[in-house]
């Protein structure tokens, strides 16, 4: 597999995530140094990713206290396992956000009762929740691009992707919520991500 990067700048030429303070190269280099036990590299890494990791935890698990706990687990895992990051398999941001999402999802699924309760209200609240929290300014580019690109998806593609990603639902739960057959939901998720990938110009 070849290394990938987030290369494009949909509506703001000259400005993209790679240009923000703390570029992808920096992040991968920081992970290399964290693996060697450098605490100041960890601190720089935290400055780059703290808002992204916490924001995603917060979005998925909802409760701010619980989100802080999960974010703490994520960063401890990064500290412990930085040596396992392989830049030939993807970006540092991709790795960190993937660790974050799976930890957050594990947490919401471990409390099945509350997940069941939330499922009833999820469909109506899923798409507008990002407006209700204090957004981190340095990720304006991602926010704008993601909002714009999500609009290029069909309704069912968008709902399938956002219910799974932002609410932590399994495809079976999404199928139930959207009253859609199971295989169809998997296909919609994939089609939705293909559109998003192309719109966000995530390149190999």
């Amino acid at each position, binding site marked *: *597999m070849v290394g990938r990067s*987030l290369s494009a700048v949909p509506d703001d030429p000259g400005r993209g*995530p790679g240009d923000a303070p703390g570029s992808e190269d920096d992040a991968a280099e920081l992970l290399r140094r964290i*693996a*060697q*036990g*450098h*605490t100041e590299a*960890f*601190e720089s890494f*935290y400055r780059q990713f*703290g808002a*992204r*990791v*916490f*924001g*995603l935890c*917060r979005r998925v698990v909802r409760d*701010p206290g619980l989100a*802080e706990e999960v974010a*703490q687990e994520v*960063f*401890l*895992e990064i*500290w*412990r396992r930085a*040596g*396992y990051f392989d830049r030939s*398999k993807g*970006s540092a941001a*991709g790795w*960190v956000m993937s660790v974050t*999402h799976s930890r957050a999802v594990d947490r919401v699924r471990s409390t099945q009762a509350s997940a069941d309760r939330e499922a009833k209200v999820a469909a109506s609240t899923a798409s507008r929740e*990002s407006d209700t*929290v*204090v*957004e981190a300014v340095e*990720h304006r580019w*991602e*926010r704008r*691009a*993601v*909002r714009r690109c999500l609009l290029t998806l069909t309704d069912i593609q968008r709902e399938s992707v956002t219910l*799974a990603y*932002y609410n*932590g*639902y*399994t*495809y079976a739960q999404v199928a139930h919520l959207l009253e859609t057959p199971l*295989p169809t939901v*998997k*296909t919609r*998720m994939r*089609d*939705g*991500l293909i559109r*998003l*990938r192309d719109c*966000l110009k*995530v390149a190999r």
Partner: protein
Amino acid sequence: MNAQLHVDTGARALDALLPAEAAAFDRHLDTCPSCATEYGEFTETVALLGSAVAVEPPPSLHVSLMRLIAITPQAPPPAAEPDPASSEPPGRAERVDRPRWYRRPPTLLAAVIIAVALIAGGVVVASQGTSGPPTAEVCVQRAADARVIAPDVGAGGSVRYAPSCHAAVVTTPKMPKLAAGNDYQLWVMAGDDAVSAGLVSASATPSSVVVPVAAADTAVGVSVEPSGGSRTPTTDPIWVVPLTG
């Protein structure tokens, strides 16, 4: 390409598959380069979905993390060379004299106690999976720099400490039963700071436990505390093993 499994790339990148399906998909990735490529692109794509909801974290997260990484051992990297000297973190510097830790008023953050419970209950246990790196216990057993240290307060028991593993195996001596309402509590000390490493049962035979040890830590000790344990030691230790010197 297995068409059914290829459709799963999207659901897998969204962590939306059931565990058994996710495992089957992950095995399939090894034999399907086009699936692996697509899955990689989707991973980068959903990372942007995550970045789009970035929120400033509370300052407490930064504070507790910096404290925690100082006491959290790192997993050896996949193809690690066993070189204890180079894997020591920088800044292994000021060592505070050991014996004053229990005389000081409590100053510990509650977060540290919670975090140590998290390490003891989560991280260390998690590292015992079959496919993961060696556990801290195995690391300490094998490490070239491990040494066995006897107590300088109390008698019996020992600590096997390996700086390269950022961990020690603490073997407490046999401990008499306590009066109701008291427990033995194990502490890892860094100078005047003591971090709980959990309760130790009264036992007629020695028992062992693995604790994370940071470069700045100076001693391991046991004190008698009110039932359930304390945030910081409230009595003089009955057993202390110095880690320094």
